[in-house]
């Protein structure tokens, strides 16, 4: 009874011309609104792209201008590119030496931080001992300390230990900032890995150490890559520790070496911007190939701040 009445009601309203007309205008209006929405969306997206990338584009562009045009030209085209800023950067400044120092620091930090953090994180997930939670929580705690609270005592301690103005000292500092982060990231990774795999390997006669090397580490490649990338970022971009712990020009790393050019009497903007572009270049390349590890690390709490 109820069903039939409602059915007939719909039939009547459907056949009424005015209602169907109302429906079409509403549909038409909605599509207009949708088009406006799409246009607005793409405008917002374009704005985000410009906001995020224009300053970087402007740096690259300016570094490719000839010295005469650098201070006069504000067009957005860099063609034809002029490499004279790069040439004088590499020939007249300490940049090549700084570059080598930075690469050595980054490589050493990646190698040591990844190795040590995998030992610590694996032990913290698989060994039985009291205070595990405290240990892992203290990694997060280590993020919280002001960098100055680490670097002031380090500068004094390194002086006593004969590591003043030494890249070995700087390596210790870079490890001190990257290890807590690396342990935290890998701990999350090892924790989510099923224990069954190692147990199966151990039943087959493998030792726990053997299972760690042959089963766990190969399977953790994505986690290890993420840790490697973030150790690299911390070391490559570090300014505070290198500024305070390194004094001589030929031992400086790229960020400090480049920033010191800013304080010079004659502001050589072309060279400075070419240097800045070259610091960013390796990051762009890694970023293009390892984008998903960057995002994975970020959401897992890999912070660089």
């Amino acid at each position, binding site marked *: 009874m109820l069903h039939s009445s409602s059915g007939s009601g719909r039939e009547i309203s459907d056949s009424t011309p005015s209602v169907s007309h109302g429906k079409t205008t509403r549909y038409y209006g909605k599509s207009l609104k949708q088009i406006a929405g799409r246009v607005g969306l793409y405008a917002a997206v374009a704005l985000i*792209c410009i906001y995020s990338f224009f300053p970087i584009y402007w740096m690259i562009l300016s570094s490719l201008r000839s010295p005469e045009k650098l201070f006069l030209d504000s067009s957005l085209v860099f063609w034809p590119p002029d490499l004279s800023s790069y040439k004088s950067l590499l020939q007249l400044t300490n940049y090549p030496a700084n570059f080598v120092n930075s690469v050595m620091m980054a490589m050493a930090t990646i190698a040591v931080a990844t190795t040590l953090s995998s030992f610590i994180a694996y032990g913290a997930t698989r060994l039985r001992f009291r205070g595990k939670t405290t240990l892992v929580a203290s990694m997060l705690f280590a993020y919280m300390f002001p960098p100055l609270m680490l670097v*002031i005592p380090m*500068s004094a301690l390194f002086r006593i230990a004969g590591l003043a103005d030494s890249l070995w000292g700087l390596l210790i500092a870079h490890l001190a900032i990257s290890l807590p982060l690396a342990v935290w990231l890998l701990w999350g990774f090892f924790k989510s890995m099923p224990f069954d795999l190692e147990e199966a390997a151990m039943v087959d006669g493998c030792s726990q150490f053997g299972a760690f090397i042959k089963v766990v580490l190969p399977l953790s490649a994505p986690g290890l890559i993420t840790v490697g990338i973030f150790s690299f970022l911390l070391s490559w971009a570090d300014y505070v520790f290198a500024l305070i712990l390194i004094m001589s020009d030929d031992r400086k790393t790229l960020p400090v070496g480049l920033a010191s050019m800013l304080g010079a009497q004659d502001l050589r903007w072309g060279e400075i911007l070419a240097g*800045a572009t070259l610091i960013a270049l390796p990051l762009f390349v890694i970023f293009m190939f390892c984008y998903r590890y960057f995002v994975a690390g970020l959401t897992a709490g890999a912070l660089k701040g």
Partner: protein
Amino acid sequence: MRQDWRIIGLFIGGVLVLGTIVGGPLLYSIKLSFYTAASFIDPPQWVGLGNYVKVLSEPLFWGSLLNGVTIAISAIVLQVVLGVTIALVLNRQFVGQTVVRALSIVPYFLPTVVACLITQWILDPNYGLLKSVFASFGYGMFDWGGNSTSAKATIVLVSVWIWTPFVVTCVLAGLQSIPAQLYEAARVDGAGVMKQFWHVTLPGLRSVLIVVILLRGIWMFNKFDVIWLLTKGGPLNETETLPTLAYRKAFLEFDLGGGAAVATISFLMLASIILIYLRVFPIDEAKQGR
């Protein structure tokens, strides 16, 4: 599971190294703050709380604290507002979504030095891009480093540019966890876009935002490099913050004890604020274990 001595050995070795290189300096920093040394060579002398009393009685310390808090809070508010807005846009379906998302994170991975040098170049009083833009409208370039407000604003804006992508990435991840049914239910109940945002999106992002604000707050408060690279604490200490003050004391005035005292005090303040914050906004266990 049988415990392997090699695993135990490597674990203990790793923890010892980590403890030495992180814990050692931290403890030594606290020790230093109770001593005074006229230079790096002379034997330090015990002064008890002398460094703390001296530091806390300086107007510069309180000015630096205020500057640091002002800069940190303005930067965080802008980062969160802008970060949520960008994330909401990037969460929509559009052509090239992956590329744009990747592009929007780039500033976060740029070394701070590079970002600061770009800023200095764009703001250069003689040759900068901003000067040409102003000139085309018939205005002269203002001296951004010359007064307190514009110097602080520059630091805040550069920080926002660098670190907003962190907020965007976290919020984008958070948006995935809000069930689509909630939006449908809200729509059925007649909620418009704004209402959906206030009653569905924001509550859904609550736990993400609590963590993001906490972490960004810690990092902004401890920030040294952006400020040092842009203004060196100037003009007239107007952008001096506790980290730059600690640096100035320890390495420009050669007062290691005073620098260590400033760093320790700023850490204690931060730690107590974090404890209060976590009491007010507890992070649920589920989120933390992720």
